[in-house]
């Protein structure tokens, strides 16, 4: 599993809306070979079908699709939106951290999710990620 490796992090996301933000997080996964283009389309589709439920905390979105939608290897990407983008969530907008989640199976989901939970359960980590200008900050947080 690849978790926020350097090639999977974009600290200067330029998305103007939720669709663009999901695509930017997805494209990081595509460009590094973890998912197919179709997977990214499914991420956007899921947002249109089910809404912004994946905005699970203030400023944090975790868009994803199903393992069967085109995942080669499990990975998590991150796009930081310094200005914030509204996803249409009543309590948690604007979103500044978009984690693109790809897992090969339910078991892989569990492992990936455990890493995300341990990273984001500390609110100081969230502020550090939003304000980071250098990948090194993320790298240090990931290594714990």
């Amino acid at each position, binding site marked *: 599993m690849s978790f926020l490796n350097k090639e999977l992090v974009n600290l200067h996301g330029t998305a103007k809306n939720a669709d663009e933000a999901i695509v930017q997080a997805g494209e990081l996964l595509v460009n590094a070979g973890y998912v197919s283009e179709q997977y990214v389309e499914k991420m956007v589709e899921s947002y249109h079908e*089910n809404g912004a*439920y994946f905005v699970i*905390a203030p400023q944090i979105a975790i868009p994803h699709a199903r393992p069967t939608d085109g995942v080669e290897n499990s990975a998590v990407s991150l796009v930081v939106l310094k200005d914030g983008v509204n996803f249409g969530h009543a309590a*948690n907008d604007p979103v500044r951290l978009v984690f693109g989640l790809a897992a090969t199976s*339910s078991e892989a*989901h569990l492992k990936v999710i455990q890493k995300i939970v341990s990273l*984001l359960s500390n609110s100081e980590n969230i502020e550090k990620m939003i304000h980071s200008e250098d990948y090194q900050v993320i790298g240090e947080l990931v290594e714990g």
Partner: protein
Amino acid sequence: MKILAVCGLGQGTSLILRMNVETVLRDMGVDADVEHIDVSAARSMNVDIIVTSQELAETLGTDTGAKVVIVNNYFDNAEIKNALSAAINS
């Protein structure tokens, strides 16, 4: 007691919620069976409590006989605890 953590696809965010719900229930000393599942499957299941986001709570509507608990911040165990306590004690 049977509790469901519910999200759109039943795989990503509901799993986060389930893990934190289990942590909170342990702290509260409440014995419960917690599962995670997608919103359409949740409608037909017979459980005591459903924990989910505000948005999906609205689409669940009155289809379910369970008490629906809304959580906004999945990483805020205090919020989860308050919401669950209200449902368990009501």
